[in-house]
């Protein structure tokens, strides 16, 4: 699965998320007033409307909430099949990440599997992917 991933236009809200992998950090916006997590990252906390939100490095551990095995080549350089999953992060309640589950056969992936973040870098963007925890 080595296709050219969509490049991200970095801005003040999303930069910490997409570049945190350089320091092996999965950064999720957290409110310093109410403690709530916010994703996608924005200027305001969606729980308490505080502007006191900042990136917070979570553990990168999570669980597969749901997934699909994609068979369609949406781009010419895409290698199929591969797993697209929605991961629920252990220590960021309410946050899901759409991602890929890598380094496992596609038919070995299941809901509720425990997973851990791994980063794949392309052109300065660190894409948070996940792999199953043994």
């Amino acid at each position: 699965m080595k296709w050219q991933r969509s490049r991200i236009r970095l801005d003040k809200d999303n930069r910490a998320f997409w570049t945190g992998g350089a320091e092996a950090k999965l950064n999720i916006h957290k409110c310093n007033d109410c403690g709530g997590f916010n994703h996608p990252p924005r200027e305001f906390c969606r729980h308490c409307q505080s502007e006191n939100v900042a990136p917070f490095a979570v553990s990168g551990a999570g669980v597969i909430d749901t997934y699909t095995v994609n068979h369609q080549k949406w781009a010419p350089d895409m290698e199929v099949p591969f797993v697209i999953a929605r991961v629920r992060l252990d220590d960021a309640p309410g946050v899901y990440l759409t991602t890929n589950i890598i380094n496992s056969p596609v038919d070995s992936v299941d809901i509720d599997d425990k997973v851990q973040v791994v980063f794949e870098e392309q052109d300065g963007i660190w894409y948070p992917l996940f792999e199953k925890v043994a």
Partner: protein
Amino acid sequence: MGREAYISGVGISEVGVRLTRSPLGLTMDAIKEAIDDAGLTFDQIDGVSTYPGKMQTFMGFSPIGVDEVIEACGLKTRWHTGAAEATAQLGAIADAAAAVRSGLARHVICFRTVYEAAAMVRPEEFPPLERRKDVTGNSQWVSPFGAFSAACWTAQFAMRHMKRYGMTREQLAQVAINDHRNAALNPRAIVREPLTMDTYMAARLISTPFCLYDCDRFTDASTVVIVSAGDALDEVTATPIRIAATAGSCERYSWDQAEWAAAYPTGRDLWKNTDYTAKDLDTVQLYDGFAFQPITWLEGLGICEVGEGHKFIEGGTRIALDGELPMNTGGGQLGWGRLHGFGYAYESVVQLRGQGGARQIKGEPKLAVATSGGGPMAAALLLARD
């Protein structure tokens, strides 16, 4: 009656793939048919509503805006809207109902024109949505992972149903099989032949559990509904269908942050706005851009329990034309074509008026629901023949 809203006329253009007639031509075909159906003339129309409005960056998806319709029809309007941020496709009709109820307009043309199939083969005229080098907004959270299509997003909700509630591909298949069977009886539908379970099961996979037959395909068409105020019905010659309730909801705007599809809160809300209950429904016209979506609507509307939708449609007899709750009687988007939401309102009116011909359901149906939206935003209309 003065504070009620009605659908007074419906119209639809030729529905096809890679049509050569212009998108405005298709739109005018559907408008003229709807105006004639209602028994109105252009000088009686004082409102226009569309979803999502002209999209210059994605012309095939929505090539025609309110402005072209006002000009081409020579209208003098007092209210109009065209909003990509409405509560899903049928939100354009719900908004028109609100406008006529509040006296802002008397007769509103509501339209949805799609031109995605023709646009693909005529990119010079209709430039495709550029897969930009730098993504931003909501697409940045899904497209880097190959989840470009709503097929991949919706498939994950379907997969959760399989794992959590035991839905099978054979159960899911009933949506496409029912759509094909009904489309074959609808002379204006794209699909002409029934679909067998064997053909369905052998089809190539798109994004599990969806195969080719679970995904609607690019279509060229225009669908029109005329919404009229209750106190303007004396100008209408067709049998009016009352918009008994509307609902539209959004709890998270991001596809991948929503715990459930918006069909669930929208379905519940619809019944809060009426004295009818789900048991009163004679037919359901449920959004099926992807085959799993009607299952969420059956559950969301309370027609069955959450986690039971696939059992409700199992075997297909209950939702067939002669079943206890006929579903997507015109063929839905998997059979009729990707009319993008408005087809469900059109077909509800046809059935409630008894004009379905070979696909007309039995008895004298009085109540139908039309829904649109399969992700984090959705809209529903409850339609009644009084």
